[in-house]
């Protein structure tokens, strides 16, 4: 995959966000992101973060089944997942809560699905920080152990989704099945 294509994929949600922003703030199409743009953005950023997360999980399976070896792109995809996850939290805190810290603390304590989401993000942080080659050199074998945290993150994300299901479980199911399939391919298929 050429670098340009990778950067395009990572930038795509940002381009869509920028376009929406333009439509609302400048072109005056106030309902472009529905009457509750904050809620729309929380869902949008969350879904893209999950998308990138699953992409990082697909790298090893794709190599194992002998398709493509895109290991060099995994770091950037992982960082994109982290970036959009942070944006997801920011949108929630700013656009849904109006930066009311009391509610945020309440959410942490009383809402299990938010707590699971926060933990997932917290899990991604040390991996984002140690994503550079410098850190890889410094931690050596421990780097690989640390980055296995991703498996915990994926479970937390799946929990975060299922705990929000009110009656339509399509997204939660799709993400769970994809993660399971990738997990199966990663661990069960013949080593490349």
């Amino acid at each position, binding site marked *: 995959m050429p670098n340009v294509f990778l950067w395009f994929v990572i930038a795509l949600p940002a381009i869509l966000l920028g376009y929406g922003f333009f439509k609302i703030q400048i072109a005056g199409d106030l309902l472009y992101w529905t009457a*509750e743009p*904050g809620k729309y953005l929380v869902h949008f950023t969350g879904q893209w973060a999950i998308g990138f997360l699953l992409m990082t999980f697909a790298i090893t399976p794709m190599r194992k089944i002998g398709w493509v070896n895109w290991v060099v792109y995994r770091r950037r995809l992982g960082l994109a997942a982290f970036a959009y996850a942070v944006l997801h939290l920011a949108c929630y805190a700013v656009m849904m809560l109006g930066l009311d810290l009391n509610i945020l603390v309440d959410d942490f304590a009383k809402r299990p699905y938010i707590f699971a989401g926060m933990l997932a993000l917290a899990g991604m942080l040390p991996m984002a920080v140690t994503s550079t080659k410098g850190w890889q050199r410094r931690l050596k074998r421990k780097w690989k152990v640390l980055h296995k945290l991703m498996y915990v993150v994926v479970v937390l994300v799946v929990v975060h989704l299922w705990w929000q299901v009110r009656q339509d*479980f399509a997204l939660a199911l799709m993400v769970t099945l994809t993660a399971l399939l990738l997990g199966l391919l990663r661990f069960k298929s013949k080593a490349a």
Partner: protein
Amino acid sequence: MLIKSSTLLTEADVTPEAVYRQRRRFMQGAVGAALGLSMPAWATQSSALTYTQTQYGQQDTLTPEDVVTSYNNFYELGTGKNDPVKNASELKTANWSIEVAGHAEKTGVFHLEDILKQNPLEERIYRLRCVEAWSMVIPWVGLSLASMLKQFAPTSKAKYVKFTTLHDPKHLSGQRNAFSTIDWPYVEGLRMDEAMNELSFMATGLYGKALPNQNGAPIRLVVPWKYGFKSIKSIVKIEFVESEPETTWNKLAPHEYGFYANVNPTVDHPRWSQASERRLPTGLFNIRKVPTQMFNGYGEQVAYLYKHMDLAKYY
């Protein structure tokens, strides 16, 4: 403040039935043919309604009409907020009838126009508070639920009213959704005294025009002191029953959605606080947060109904 022009109806305004029916057939045919749409039989060519004004909500700022008609929870037409307006044509409202059953003297299947012809319409501006913590102010047009139900003469055995929405999976894509756990058709209910309360309203229009499909055409309930999911849309059956009916959301998630569902800032939803709400439309950086009022601000008219009830228990 948008105040629609009103007309006080008198006997002289009543159209002779034969002429009324002739016009309806012509309008339905002509407009239907021209637009390829199915329109409710009683709607006029422009679907503009004639109604009187009431004092409700005169101090509230109306939510813009395009917001009211494009941001809807009507899962029969899809679960996205703008799915109902996008899939509005899936709802077929022509020749609408309502089945009235249970403990009442007059039961049977009635054409909607026959039910409505006894009652002049009025406009009521009500606040609508969704359980999801967003809210709107909507100028509904319709008639009081009490005056509609009185036509059927419910007996003393009628303790609750049970409402049912259309079940039409052939046309309504949301009812064919394999990933939905909702047990169609949608059912809601009220205690008899709640139903007879002055505020309970059956809406057939909004913003002076016939109800758009996505808002629950051709007729829907509006109970402004309860969370929006109680205000059942596109009603096809009204049943007078003796015991509390099993309602759709309560059956689906009993710890989240109760039968009473009175707007109550002191009782949290398990997943979010109900102490405040976002008055739509919200901007990107302006969430228009409004503190939620007990009974959505209608305590004066409805608090008496719950005088001896623990509303934390009966949420």
